[in-house]
């Protein structure tokens, strides 16, 4: 039945066939040309997927939704990284096709085609689905969320509307769990409120249905995955890291004059054992055993809890301030590690707020500048392409190699960094134009 409907749709709409064929062709070319990119945070995500583990630093919806692929890989006796690239590209391609089907219900078909074709073959979008990072999934979920909202708006039957709006709620939550900066996209989940085809009461019913769907997914995620593996009902305990990076961005210094919490932070960061920043302490709430934390907590819990400025000032006066920059992640990590994640979050939030209160004009100027700068999308545009042969090989080498293209040397790499866009584009076009670097010795490039 479903196959009959799909083939009838294809006969009616040749643009659909051209769209799906073009997107699949480009993505297939990408798959034979590039290895699966596992690097940086991507390595953490991949390790978490292999362990079926959530995290308190990274949002782990991507891990949760990829678990069936890991189980399938396990059943087939292969590495998950051998299946992920194909599933991810297929899911991305399918999301664009669904968006096309939705959009053509409200705008002319040719415009819908012209929107979805470049979106489906966009170098940045294709490359994003070739990594073990969650951003591609966010974009795909957004496309499905918009599609679900449009299908709901344009459906004639009440039952269909209810189902699509419920889907929009579930997809909104799926996007949020995949990465928390999805929050503004939830605007599309409130579409039922604007549905002129419904009276006000059914609109609210649909919205409540969407919210219940979202809550159900959240409850499943929390009870079956996040809480059992992290021991925390809080999704993230790493805001302090971002807060301090923002202070650095805004050129707000961490000075004793900022406030009491800042002085406590300076004292603790000078006296706790140094350690390099990394995601390890955030794997679960008690990743650092209590036996290690207990002596530090015993010694410093009084200082953390006190509201007595003299006590803090005395501690501050007794030690030299050696750190050139207290906003570096290496400085804040020992606080989270040795005193606890929740304790670190509370202290760092207060440090952030004190910085804002002392230098509000710097913060606001930075927010304004960042907002204006972010509107220049071309400056953020960066196809994140792995470059074989340039970086050091890693144990992920054999996992990432496409099985049917044995001559392609596949490497993970630390980070390409923001190479000049023109150069990246030339490289990209060059490889596709050949087509695909896999058919030629990589030393040429």
């Amino acid at each position, binding site marked *: 039945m479903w196959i009959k409907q799909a083939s009838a749709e294809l006969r009616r709409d040749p643009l659909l066939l051209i769209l799906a064929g073009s997107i699949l062709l480009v993505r297939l070319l990408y798959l034979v040309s590039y290895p699966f990119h596992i690097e940086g945070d991507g390595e953490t995500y991949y390790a978490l997927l292999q362990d079926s583990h959530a995290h308190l630093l990274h949002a782990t919806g991507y891990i949760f939704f990829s678990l069936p692929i890991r189980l399938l890989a396990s059943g087939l006796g292969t590495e998950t990284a051998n299946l992920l690239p194909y599933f991810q590209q297929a899911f991305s391609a399918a999301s664009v096709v669904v*968006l096309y089907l939705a*959009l053509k*219900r*409200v*705008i*002319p078909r040719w*415009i*819908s085609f*012209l*929107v*979805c074709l*470049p*979106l489906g073959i*966009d170098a*940045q*979008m294709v490359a*994003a689905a070739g990594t073990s*990072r969650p*951003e*591609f999934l*966010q*974009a795909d979920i*957004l*496309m499905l969320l*918009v599609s679900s*909202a*449009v299908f709901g*708006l*344009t459906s004639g039957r009440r039952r269909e509307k209810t189902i699509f709006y419920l889907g929009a709620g579930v997809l909104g939550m799926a996007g949020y769990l995949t*990465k928390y*900066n*999805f*929050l*503004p*996209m939830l*605007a*599309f989940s409130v*579409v039922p409120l*604007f*549905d*002129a*085809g419904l009276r006000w009461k059914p609109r609210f019913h649909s919205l409540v249905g969407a919210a219940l769907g979202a809550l159900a997914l959240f409850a499943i995620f929390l009870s079956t995955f996040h809480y059992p593996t992290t021991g925390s009902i809080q999704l993230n305990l790493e805001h302090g890291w*971002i807060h301090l*990076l*923002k202070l650095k*961005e805004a050129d707000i210094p961490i000075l004793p004059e900022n406030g009491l919490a800042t002085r406590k932070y300076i004292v603790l960061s000078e006296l706790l054992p140094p350690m390099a920043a990394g995601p390890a302490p955030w794997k679960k709430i008690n990743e650092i055993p209590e036996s290690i934390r207990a002596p530090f907590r015993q010694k410093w819990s009084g200082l953390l809890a006190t509201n007595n400025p003299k006590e803090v000032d005395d501690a501050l006066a007794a030690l030299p301030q050696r750190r050139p920059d207290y906003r570096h992640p290496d400085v804040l990590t020992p606080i989270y590690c040795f005193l606890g994640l929740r304790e670190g979050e509370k202290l760092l939030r207060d440090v952030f707020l004190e910085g804002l209160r002392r230098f509000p004009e710097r913060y606001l100027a*930075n*927010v*304004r500048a*960042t*907002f204006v*700068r*972010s*509107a220049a*999308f071309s400056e*953020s*545009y*960066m196809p*994140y392409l792995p470059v074989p042969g340039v970086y050091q090989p890693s144990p992920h080498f054999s996992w990432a190699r496409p099985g049917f293209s044995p001559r392609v040397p596949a490497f993970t790499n630390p980070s390409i960094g923001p190479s000049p866009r023109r150069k990246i584009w030339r490289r990209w076009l060059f490889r596709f134009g050949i087509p695909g670097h896999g058919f030629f010795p990589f030393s040429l490039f």
Partner: protein
Amino acid sequence: MLAGFVVAPFLIRRHRRVPPVEMLLMLASAALVGEMGFAALLFVFRSKELILCQPLIYLMMGLSVALWVEFVSVRRPPSPHVRDAA
């Protein structure tokens, strides 16, 4: 991308309600501005955020083109496929 907002008020007036295309354009722009603002308040807008926003950018361009096409073809009755699907 934003060109649709030039003609949207006229089309809303013509339809005496907010049709789906205009509403989607408003929601997409709200989501995009929200994302840019969210990133600016908490950190910076990076390529990671752009990957998320990419569908919105293409969507807004397409919706704007569709609104202009409808606006300039004012004398032609709107296609049932396009307008009255809702």
